């Protein structure tokens, strides 16, 4: 893969004191769909704005096709951008909005007309060219914004929480459409969101941001299966977290003792040496219940606190180790619903549990 953009030790501070982005190294490959995922305020928009040319890095450099970018003004970067509130030009019609990037590039009139039509066709809005943006629904505006960012065939398209203003159904649909456009056009996309499920479903790779740093950069499955620290583990997907102390550890295995003395074995991630605090993380679907728990390396018994029917699975809340928020899943269609208050065996294998340093948990 060829890198089209690379960030080299890029830092940004707005006020000269606090860093909003710190020592960012990031490479974006030609044609990939890269998502910047992180909680609000973690520096995603700032990163995007530096790439688009609306903010200047305080230190470090960004390269586009190997050439430094920081002295190049936004209009010479050839980067399409979709803004969160779309930033459609309210005084221009939809067709004029789409024609704008081509006009400022002095394309011939016939070509402009033809490409605007094609772009409207592409986002499946062939009839709205004459309307003003205010006369469109939110979903339609979003598609026009998308078409406008793509119509001049930029090297790179940036999208800053482009679906944030849409309702859930429309959002799911647009996720699919954006994905399909990416596959069809082969354009490189940098996508910003704070919604982890959106990031997981859309991306080739995800960069998890927290506190102005990239905590992990990986493909969605890798990110979900092997988060590299406690923050990523808890931010991406649902997790049970058991806080305790490392009793023993070697290169691969950590044994962790909970406050009530319970011991469990987990795959050692960044957990410290014996005596250090540790957090063991287990995904609910890896927490096996009832008879299935019998073969698990870590086996316990708890009381059923709550059972919620989810159609394809049951979601069981258990009380054990002096708490009552342990979540497990059970396939439906099994024998009988566990009764509230009944004892239930649960467990997980060492490979399904990961021991982390709790200091790296916060954003």
């Amino acid at each position, binding site marked *: 893969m060829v890198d089209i953009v690379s960030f080299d030790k890029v830092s940004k501070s707005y006020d000269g004191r606090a860093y909003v982005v710190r020592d960012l190294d990031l490479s974006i490959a030609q044609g990939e769909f890269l998502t910047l995922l992180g909680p609000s305020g973690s520096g995603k928009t700032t990163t995007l704005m530096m790439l688009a040319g609306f903010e200047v890095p305080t230190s470090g450099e960004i390269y586009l096709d190997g050439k430094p970018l920081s*002295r190049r003004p936004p209009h010479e970067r050839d980067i399409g951008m979709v803004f969160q509130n779309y930033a459609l030009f309210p005084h221009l019609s939809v067709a004029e909005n789409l024609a704008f990037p081509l006009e400022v590039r002095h394309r011939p009139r016939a070509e402009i007309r033809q490409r605007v039509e094609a772009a409207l066709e592409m986002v499946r809005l062939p009839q709205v060219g004459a309307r003003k943006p205010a006369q469109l629904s939110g979903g339609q505006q979003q598609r026009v914004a998308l078409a406008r960012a793509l119509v001049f065939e930029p090297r790179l398209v940036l999208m800053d929480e482009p679906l944030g203003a849409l309702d859930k159904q429309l959002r799911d649909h647009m996720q699919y459409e954006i994905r399909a456009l990416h596959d069809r056009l082969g354009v490189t996309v940098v996508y910003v969101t704070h919604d982890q499920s959106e990031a997981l479903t859309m991306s080739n790779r995800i960069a998890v941001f927290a506190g102005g740093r990239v905590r992990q950069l990986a493909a969605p499955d890798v990110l979900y299966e092997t988060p590299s620290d406690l923050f990523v583990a808890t931010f991406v997907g649902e997790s049970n977290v058991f806080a305790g102390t490392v009793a023993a550890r070697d290169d691969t295995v950590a044994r962790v003792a909970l406050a009530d003395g319970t011991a469990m074995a987990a795959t050692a991630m960044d957990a410290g040496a014996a005596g250090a605090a540790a957090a063991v993380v287990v995904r609910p679907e890896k927490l096996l219940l009832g008879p299935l728990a019998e073969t698990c390396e870590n086996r316990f018994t708890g009381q059923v606190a709550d059972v919620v029917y989810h159609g394809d699975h049951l979601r069981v809340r258990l009380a054990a180790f002096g708490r009552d928020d342990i979540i497990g899943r059970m396939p439906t269609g099994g024998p009988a619903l566990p009764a509230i208050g009944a004892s239930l065996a649960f467990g997980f294998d060492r490979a399904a549990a990961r021991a982390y340093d709790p200091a790296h948990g916060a954003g």
Partner: protein
Amino acid sequence: MPRTPIERVAGVTLAVVAALVALFLIAPLLAILPLSVSDGQFLVYPIRGFSLRWFETFFASERWALAIRNSFAIGATAASIATVLGTLAAIGLARANFRGKKFVTAVLLSPLIVPIVIYAVGLYFFFARMGLTQTYTGIVLAHAALGSPFVVVTVGAALANFDHTLMRAASGLGASPLVAFRRVMLPIVLPGVLTGALFAFAASFDEVVTVIFLAAPQQRTIPREMFSGIRENISPVIAAASVVMIVTAVLLVATVEWLRRRSLRARQQAG
């Protein structure tokens, strides 16, 4: 953002132009202030010696003292009338639609745009028949009319942002319409009412044309004295009067700004 040289030049030019325009706006006010403490006879620089004699003339002479009293009294009375009538009207306009509302609104706002001389000459004829020329009542009525649209507009703006479900909530909680108005609506639109009142006061405090046409010779106001002072024998007492007027303006700006911030904050908390 990384800026092209043109942008940098344009940015600097723009800042310089804006600064010059701001200077153009404020310089005249600053220029007249020092002359109020001049010892000279004329309203010209350089200042010859420091003296408070013009302030003495302004505050102590029979003429000016009367003008000061009149200006504040007329302004306060006219603003009170305008505020009460204007607030009621603005609430009425926001309350429901009725036939002819557009026309009524146009009439209520018309004092903002009718050239003042036309109104003043009209008053001169019309009030003569009522025996209202050369009376303070006549001047107060005229100034109340001129001030009322400011109240209608500011209270109207406050009501446009007012969430009418609050009134329903209040009556749902058992408040009578009058109590709901007093305890819920009035406190929220109060900044708008007060702002309108200050606008109405300022409109009267600054008004000279209707006074020229309506008032008897001995019915002086500050602007009227300034007008004839500027025309006939311009002296630094004009500067002393200006100082007082500018201080009044500063107080008005500060109060209005304070009210604006308050209502903005209240709205943000509500939202």
